[in-house]
């Protein structure tokens, strides 16, 4: 690990300003992803701004009937929150499907949104990776791509967003609240938060340098069966090959987003009108532009079947 200086400010504005003015500075919250990457020298910040002293750790009702989740609410606490369990089951289920108990105790709401891909070529510093080292190429395109993206990728990168929480937030139409280095606040719809790689895979999100997530807000609850169905290589503590976050009625109407298939949570709202017709009618539209590799084409069928299982669960 490269050495770094450290500070622990006490207000969000101070934290954002500190990262904005310091070269190669990063925020650290739970640290479970950042420290992992720092040990491998994939991330080499010169300065860490510890945000754990900022508060931002409560879940509060909003005037619109929704919830405002502080950026530093731990994954365990969010999944266990009574309102989340009662009204946003898809979010509780997604959180509980992710990582391990130890990691969920540390991992934060904001940090989870910002976690980086687990593409094996991003992690292996001996390999070409445009996300880790812009311009170096992408070893994944002709490499071991079984876990990687089938849609939304580019000639430069086919890494996936690895998270579960963000997929549920996408189907819930969450909004990310931030403050930038100059102190200005803005709201970013979750659909516009993560970005596709295009020709610059090094940037995972549309955040500006020094911009700090302060909260995630959820609109008022959506009725229906809340489902998060995750298919992975073992029963626990593994990343999704495919996941489905859905809120469905008994007649099949509702909303669905997919995880494990793209650089961001993948949702095509226009396809949702066909949910009552069954899984295939929907996935044919959602994945119409898919460009799978020879190793991950199975994900298209798996996505259809996982959605089918979710529809069956909602009808039961």
């Amino acid at each position, binding site marked *: 690990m490269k*050495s*770094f*200086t450290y500070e622990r400010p006490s207000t969000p504005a101070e934290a954002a300003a500190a990262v904005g003015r310091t*070269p190669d500075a990063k925020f*650290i919250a739970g640290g479970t992803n950042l420290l992992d990457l720092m040990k491998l020298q994939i991330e080499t910040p*010169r300065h860490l701004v510890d945000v754990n002293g900022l508060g931002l750790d409560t879940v509060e009702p909003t005037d619109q009937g929704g919830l405002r989740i502080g950026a530093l609410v731990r994954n365990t606490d969010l999944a266990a929150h009574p309102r989340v369990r009662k009204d946003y089951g898809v979010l509780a289920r997604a959180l509980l499907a992710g990582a391990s*108990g130890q*990691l969920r105790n540390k991992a934060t709401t904001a940090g989870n949104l910002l976690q980086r891909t687990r593409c094996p070529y991003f992690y292996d510093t001996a390999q070409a990776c445009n996300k880790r080292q812009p311009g170096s190429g992408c070893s994944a395109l002709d490499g071991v791509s079984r876990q990687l993206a089938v849609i939304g990728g580019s000639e430069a990168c086919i890494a996936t967003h690895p998270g579960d929480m963000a997929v549920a937030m996408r189907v819930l139409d969450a909004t990310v609240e931030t403050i930038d280095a100059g102190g200005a606040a803005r709201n970013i719809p979750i659909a516009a938060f993560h970005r596709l790689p295009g020709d610059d895979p090094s940037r995972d999100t549309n955040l500006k340098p020094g911009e700090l997530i302060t909260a995630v807000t959820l609109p008022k609850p959506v009725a229906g069966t809340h489902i998060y169905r995750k298919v992975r290589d073992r029963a626990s503590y593994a990343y999704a090959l495919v996941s489905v976050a859905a809120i469905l009625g008994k007649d099949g109407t509702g909303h669905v987003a997919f995880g494990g298939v793209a650089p961001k949570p993948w949702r095509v709202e226009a396809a949702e009108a066909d949910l009552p017709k069954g899984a295939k009618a929907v996935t044919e539209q959602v994945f119409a532009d898919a460009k799978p590799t020879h190793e991950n084409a199975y994900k298209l069928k798996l996505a259809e079947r996982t959605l089918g299982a979710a529809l069956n669960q909602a009808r039961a």
Partner: protein
Amino acid sequence: MVGATAPAAATRTDEPVLAKVTLTVNGQRRDLELDTRTSLLDAAREHLHLTGSKKGCDHGQCGACTMIVDGRRINACLTLAIMHQGAEITTIEGLGQPDHLHPMQAAFVKHDGYQCGYCTPGQICSGVAVLEEIKAGIPSHVTADLEAAPQITEAEIRERMSGNICRCGAYSNIVEAMTEVAEARA
């Protein structure tokens, strides 16, 4: 700010940066001056000579380093010691000692909850915390009804212990040990 001023943008010297931190470890106040890079695990093992907590993968994948920090189990390898100013930390040494074992330690001995023993301190710290998490009503991936209180079942224990790897494969005996402690307490 530790390290006075932010480093110059030009060449990177990679000089160590030192910082002071005070931790309460197993009930004892410990004042340390550490390289900012020091993980909580390395602080315990290398600086406090509490070598019960083990370094397995050093990447949060194996759970051998599990400690209980402010009442919660975490991977001590994936957190910096300096981020825990004033924290209350319990390692395996603080749970029990050979002459007065914690009930979970005694149950692991009784049920052969280990073979080589390397993962065991992490398993036991995690096991103690898992029973507290269920008691506190925190749901898991296998909890059928999100709004009901989770129960202590084999499926719940197995799911909640998935962040602790045992390469000897003592899992079924670990489940038995944890179940016995849970039943004795109920």
